[in-house]
């Protein structure tokens, strides 16, 4: 009540829109520290949008559950005995206690530890101790099932949920760009998520963590020591002058190294066996033929980072995905999921583990260096003078062309740039300013088609 009332007073559509200027790339720093903006993000971005829940392999059996969040609302993602996946708010309808306290598990039903109410795997309230004696049969269990996400759906095995019944379908929400991003994971084959989700907290605003995934500019400098360590050769993976950016509806985007079109044309001619053979001599693995269906003829050229708006990063060619959960304006939880093809031979799996453990995550040779930059940037946003200094996201602005391939997929072939960040913040202002899905649908910008 009070919080959102205040927020409404302080931040009207105009003032929200002015937080980022797409014409100059100037970004208002208060977006990283204002408490009202944060509350509005929870309402208008997280509760409204489609949030990544888990991969189907994590809850393959009836009763398997995985705890996740929609913003700061905790949810249970559970497969019921019909095989359907339900997303339930983890709060008992009686007096609000949490049903599940473990991070994952398997159960027949959800029994509340306070008074023993029992909910089915689909959220239905199936048992109320004393309903006959104490409630005198005057209690309608049907009305008191667990609150369910308004929509749950999956694409390529990745489950998402939204609390907003007016949201478009997952397919439409993802659009071409979001689907391409998830396709990057699926193009590795029939995949499973490995046991062990790394989770850690960084003292930074969630958006700073998110926009960093588009940021290939920081790699050479921030991560110089990862190169010095001998673990990886940064220049082999960076390709600063072969960058491919894809900007998608609703704020999704993909950015990073791209395979030049001519080279891809040659790859397209190769069989999967030839690709596998050639990959042995390259720092990256070439995708199999079927990838093109999943990613499109432009998307398949991307060796970069998709972000499913708002907070799901697909990384290392689809080997890991990283979710960024908001924890107040000044903290973010990072969750790392690692995937392997089901049929990957042990050595391949060993190689994936080696990369995943040693590159990313809080102890990763690369990732170690990111957190403090993000946290220092967030922290300085609180100073009354410092927070008046807008960020600049001007790199490449106005210098690039969007091409549309014969299949209608768009991409920007360029060098290192800040297109992804600009698109992310532009979309963010539109989500935040919109009063409903109808409003968002009507007022959002469409991905650029020409100059960008």
């Amino acid at each position: 009540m009070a919080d959102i009332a205040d927020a409404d007073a302080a931040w009207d559509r105009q003032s929200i829109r002015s937080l980022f200027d797409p014409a100059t790339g100037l970004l208002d720093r208060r977006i990283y520290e204002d408490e009202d903006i944060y509350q509005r993000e929870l309402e208008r971005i997280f509760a409204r949008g489609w949030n990544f829940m888990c991969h189907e392999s994590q809850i393959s059996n009836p009763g398997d559950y995985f705890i996740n969040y929609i913003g700061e609302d905790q949810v249970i993602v559970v497969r019921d005995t019909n095989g359907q996946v339900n997303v339930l708010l983890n709060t008992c309808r009686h007096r609000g206690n949490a049903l599940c306290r473990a991070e994952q598990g398997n159960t027949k039903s959800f029994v509340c530890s306070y008074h023993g109410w029992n909910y089915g795997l689909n959220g239905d309230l199936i048992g109320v101790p004393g309903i006959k004696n104490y409630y005198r049969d005057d209690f309608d269990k049907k009305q008191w099932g667990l609150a369910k996400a308004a929509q749950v759906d999956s694409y390529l095995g990745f489950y998402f949920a939204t609390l907003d019944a007016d949201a478009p379908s997952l397919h439409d929400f993802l659009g071409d760009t979001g689907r391409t991003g998830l396709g990057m994971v699926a193009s590795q084959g029939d995949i499973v998520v490995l046991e062990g989700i790394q989770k850690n907290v960084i003292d930074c605003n969630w958006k700073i963590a998110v926009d960093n995934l588009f940021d290939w500019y920081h790699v050479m400098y921030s991560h110089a020591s990862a190169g010095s360590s001998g673990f990886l050769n940064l220049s082999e993976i960076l390709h600063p002058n072969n960058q491919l950016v894809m900007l998608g509806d609703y704020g999704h985007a993909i950015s990073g190294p791209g395979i030049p079109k001519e080279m891809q044309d040659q790859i397209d001619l190769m069989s999967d066996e030839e690709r596998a053979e050639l990959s042995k001599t390259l720092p990256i693995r070439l995708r199999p033929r079927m990838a093109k269906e999943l990613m499109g003829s432009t998307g398949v050229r991307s060796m970069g980072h998709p972000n499913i708006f708002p907070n799901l990063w697909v990384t290392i060619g689809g080997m890991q995905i990283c979710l960024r959960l908001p924890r107040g304006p000044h903290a973010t939880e990072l969750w790392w999921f690692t995937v392997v093809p089901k049929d990957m031979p042990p050595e391949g799996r060993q190689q994936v583990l080696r990369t995943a453990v040693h590159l990313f995550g809080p102890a990763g040779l690369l990732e170690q260096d990111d957190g403090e930059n993000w946290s220092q940037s967030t922290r300085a946003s609180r100073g009354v003078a410092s927070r008046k200094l807008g960020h600049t996201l001007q790199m490449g602005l106005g210098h690039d062309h969007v091409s549309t391939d014969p299949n209608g997929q768009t991409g920007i072939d360029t060098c290192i740039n800040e297109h992804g960040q600009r698109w992310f913040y532009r979309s963010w202002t539109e989500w935040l300013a919109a009063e409903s899905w109808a409003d968002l649908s009507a007022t959002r910008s469409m991905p650029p088609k020409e100059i960008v």
Partner: protein
Amino acid sequence: MEALKAKDNGLTAAKLNPGERMLIQHEAEHFLYEEAALLDARRYRDWLALIAEDMHYWMPIRRTVTQSDIDKEFTKIGDMSFFDDTREILEMRVKKLEAGSAWSEDPPSRSRHFVTNVRILDVAGDEITAESSFYLYRTRLNTEVDVWTGRRIDGLRRSGESFLLFKRHMFLDQTLIRSTNMSTLF
């Protein structure tokens, strides 16, 4: 001294006579304290000299699970983990710290490794398995504080008058890591 077997996580099954055990305990503690001091003094190269070629430096991920799932509390070898390092990887970590561009460690963190409750679990030939409780305190800049606690299983192999460390398995107490990074060696 004969080979002795003990369960990894519990009371020492076999018995050394207390006097013998006391000496081994002292030697192990002496080594572990010196090793910790090298890390806290940021003498990483000297620390590497204590690491055996076949080192396995491993920290699984701990999960909040129910009683009934307690065997799934820690991830297993072959699952994801926070550390799963050979000596080669540890040397890369050290090279990174020495690179002059490891920004997350410049200004360097200040760490303190409290090693307590050391127990000799096993003595087999020239190898000793020791369990201990660790409390790793790290502070950075002027206000950052991180605390990691847990149980450690260390494998020590006699080498000259000292030991080499060939195994360090670290079982954290925390599930969600409330730290920006883990750029500190445990």
